[in-house]
């Protein structure tokens, strides 16, 4: 399967600050996906990141709060801006992975706690 390196693994942040999460894939992929998993909840898609164009956000998520960069076909960042305790979640990046028979592979995840 594709190998996705996601950083940081975890962080504790003060409210009002921002955190940028990075994902590096070991192969070129057209689309990268960013998910949020709030405590005790399932995964919710935040946005789809395409190289060379603006990310596409799902209902309830906005660019000002979750700006995304996609400078090339192997890398993307998600920033969680002006954080509040409600942003405490696991954040995951994902790619569609032809090496696992069209399944989707996930990064190792970032556990964010906002205090």
């Amino acid at each position, binding site marked *: *399967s594709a190998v996705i390196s996601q950083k940081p693994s975890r962080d504790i942040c003060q409210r009002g600050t921002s955190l940028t999460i990075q994902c590096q894939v070991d192969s070129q992929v057209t*689309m990268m*996906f960013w998910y949020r998993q709030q405590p005790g*909840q*399932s*995964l*919710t*898609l935040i946005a*789809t990141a395409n190289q060379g164009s603006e990310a596409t956000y799902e209902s309830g998520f906005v660019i000002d709060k979750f700006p995304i960069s996609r400078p090339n076909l192997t890398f993307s960042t998600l920033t969680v801006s002006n954080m509040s305790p409600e942003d405490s979640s*696991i954040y*995951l990046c*994902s790619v*569609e*992975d032809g090496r*696992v*028979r*069209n*399944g*989707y*592979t*996930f*990064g*190792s*995840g*970032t*556990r964010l706690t906002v205090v």
Partner: protein
Amino acid sequence: EDKVVQSPLSLVVHEGDTVTLNCSYEVTNFRSLLWYKQEKKAPTFLFMLTSSGIEKKSGRLSSILDKKELFSILNITATQTGDSAIYLCAVGRGAQKLVFGQGTRLTINP
């Protein structure tokens, strides 16, 4: 609105038991149904199902899809403590988006 519902939400069994996890869905532009195992943070891929009635197997795990009744099951036989995890069902729609169910938290007691 697209919806994926898993049941039960939580299940506790003894080592050696067989378990069946359920996933039903109502999704437009259905493309595939996927099962994942989540132990810490990152879900790991188990199966992808696209056709009805064809069972996929991997060791003690198997899964099948019914596209007419819009559901899938994941079976685990001879369970082991290492099978303890959250099992996630997700449905792939057009444009490669996944919609996830709430997950089933499976606990295997020795």
